[in-house]
């Protein structure tokens, strides 16, 4: 049971609790060094995002290491209303590989299939790999584990549709905007009302390249604050009509009790025929925009219900892909575990080769001392002959031992091999014992 994951996520703890356990980017190297300094940990990595904080460890002594990691997490969280252990889960052995592969593929995320986690796991791996010397946190096994995990994440996303489609209202708005305009770079956007959801949607659009942002709100302070955040311009609520003809994407999220953009007003302020598309995202309840405006040429009007339908359809598609994604994860866990199990035969194989090489060299020098009449070329031929013979004789036993270890049958077979070749379990010469 050499692996363990100790941590918490969105299922085991609320956001308030998760915040307490979270490590900032600058705290992570010290946290890793702290865990390594405890007894029984050979390798360690820490994933800390808004939805999870998890220590992954390769252990030499699980009995002392796991409580030590739990203590490290409890110390980070400080005083809680319940003992830290109540929020934490511990997984061991093969379940750790399965868990990491599911995490990196987005199958364990709050929004199934989300893609950010792939980058977050990569960052966690890079930070752990960056520690060197006495603080070296990643060695051969974790290199293999995390590299394979990132490959699994990529495979799941490319071979299934688990990450496709919009996962939230703002991302649905972005997806639609992309289908209308293509690139959003340099597009002009306006948010009317500046509620939280409006601001979030604007943020997503700005991240996609929307450049010129206008914020119109009855609350000028709020408008100025939002505009300053996105490098935009705030205008008085009554002035939004002046800005509308120059705008390509409009987000409305006011608390007005009636539609504040009526068809009659729209016709009065806007050109009769819009040359370029106007995308209106009405996320207010009740609606801010009279539905008939959506029938006008080149106007694309989407309400919060329309966007929610897109999110729901996309969620259903993602869920339908889960079995396929989980199949890939199971296959890859098995592959990793076979590789890892194969490592158990490595010390014996190394000792076997060293012993055989010792015998070869001593027998060769004895034989060559009696064959001094041979030319240098012929002596080299004899040397090569012994080396090739040894390689061929050892090939099958070592391959079979490795395969047996990968299949979990190494115990009996290794014991028999140790007996036959006279090598001890710890790699010493068993014949002498």
């Amino acid at each position, binding site marked *: 049971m050499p692996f363990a994951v100790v941590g918490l996520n969105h299922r085991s703890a609320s956001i308030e609790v998760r915040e307490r356990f979270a490590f900032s980017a600058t705290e992570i190297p010290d946290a890793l060094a702290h865990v390594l300094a405890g007894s029984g940990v050979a390798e360690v990595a820490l994933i800390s995002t808004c939805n999870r904080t998890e220590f992954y460890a390769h252990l030499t002594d699980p009995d002392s290491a796991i409580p030590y990691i739990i203590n490290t997490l409890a110390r980070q969280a400080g005083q809680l209303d319940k003992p830290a252990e109540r929020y934490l889960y511990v997984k061991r052995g093969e379940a750790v590989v399965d868990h990491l592969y599911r995490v990196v593929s987005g199958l364990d995320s709050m929004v199934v299939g989300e893609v950010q986690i792939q980058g977050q796991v990569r960052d966690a791996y890079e930070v752990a790999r960056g520690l060197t010397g006495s603080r070296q946190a990643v060695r051969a096994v974790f290199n293999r584990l995390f590299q394979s995990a990132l490959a699994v994440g990529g495979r799941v996303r490319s071979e299934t549709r688990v990450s496709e489609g919009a996962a939230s209202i703002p991302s649905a708005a972005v997806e639609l905007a992309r*289908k209308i*305009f*293509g*690139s959003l770079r340099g597009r002009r956007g306006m948010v009317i009302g500046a509620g939280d959801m409006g601001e979030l949607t604007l943020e997503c659009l700005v991240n996609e390249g929307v450049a010129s942002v206008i914020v119109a709100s009855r609350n000028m302070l709020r408008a100025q604050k939002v505009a300053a955040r996105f490098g935009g311009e705030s205008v008085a609520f009554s002035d939004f009509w002046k800005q509308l003809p120059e705008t390509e994407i409009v987000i409305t999220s006011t608390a007005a009790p009636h539609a504040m953009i009526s068809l009659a007003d729209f016709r009065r302020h806007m050109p009769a025929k*819009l040359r370029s598309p106007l995308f209106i995202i009405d996320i207010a309840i009740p609606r801010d925009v009279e539905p008939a405006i959506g029938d006008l040429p080149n106007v694309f009007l989407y309400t919060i219900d329309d966007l929610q339908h897109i999110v729901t359809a996309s969620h259903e598609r993602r869920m339908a892909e889960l079995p396929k994604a989980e199949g890939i994860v199971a296959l890859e866990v098995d592959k990793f575990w076979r590789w890892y199990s194969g490592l158990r035969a490595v010390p014996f194989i190394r000792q076997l080769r060293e012993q055989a090489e010792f015998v070869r060299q001593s027998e060769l020098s004895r034989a060559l001392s009696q064959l001094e009449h041979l030319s240098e070329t012929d002596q080299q031929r004899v040397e090569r002959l012994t080396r090739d013979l040894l390689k061929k004789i050892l090939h099958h036993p070592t391959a079979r031992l490795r395969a047996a270890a990968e299949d979990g049958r190494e115990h009996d077979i290794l014991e028999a091999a140790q007996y036959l070749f006279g090598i001890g379990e710890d790699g010493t010469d068993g014949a002498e014992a």
Partner: protein
Amino acid sequence: MHVTAYALAAVLYVAASVRYALRFARARPGTTALGAVIVYAGVFSHVLGVGFYWAEFGEPPLVGLGPSLATLALLIALALAGLGFFSAARALGLILAPVAASILALALIIGIAPMGSELGFRGPWLVFHISISFVGYAGWVVAAAAASMYLLQFRELKHKQLGAVFEFFPSLGTLDKLTEWALIAGFAALTLGIAVGWAWTIRFEGGFRWTNPKVIWAVSAWLALLVALSMRFSRPSRQAALWNVAGFAAVSLAYLVAKLMIPEHGFFL
């Protein structure tokens, strides 16, 4: 030899069409690299076919219905291959790959061999006139395909029925730009082609024969393309797309009618 290469190209265009159709049916994005790679292979085989034809008959495949159609198919496939470098534009293969495959298949059925009749003028200017005119028609085919996709994507977005068209087709912005570029390229090429043909007809035949059906059709096509282009720069994109598709359909239909009703040997294409 040339027939084998042409036939292989047709098979590869069909394979690319199937690839695009499957992606569309599964509502996956139309940015398939495999579809583009199959088109590249088809174009390679097609170009080999042109080379073999030229070597065999001593002239490029530009004269006669079969050779002309085969060359038009090549230009459409070349345009599609060019679009293949831009992942957002690959989805046009849904229309252009089957169009190229159908035209080439028709050419193979008719027979890709020289017509053997005496033409008004030969040599490099004839080659240039026909080639550049074909580039113009191919440009219009691409523009019409992009405009058709624009109209379908527009409809899907407007009616909020986001299905296979929404997923597979490029954005309205991309389709609009593609239409514009293809129209500009097609119009410039066809203008040049007609101008060269006009100049040489005057020089070698003493005047421009306005009653010749192929002249009437070519000038009508040029006018329709001019209208589509002017609409593109003066009207909203959807209206421009409608004019473009309608104009292309009318000119294509006029060609078919003329081809069937006027049994004049040598009516080009």
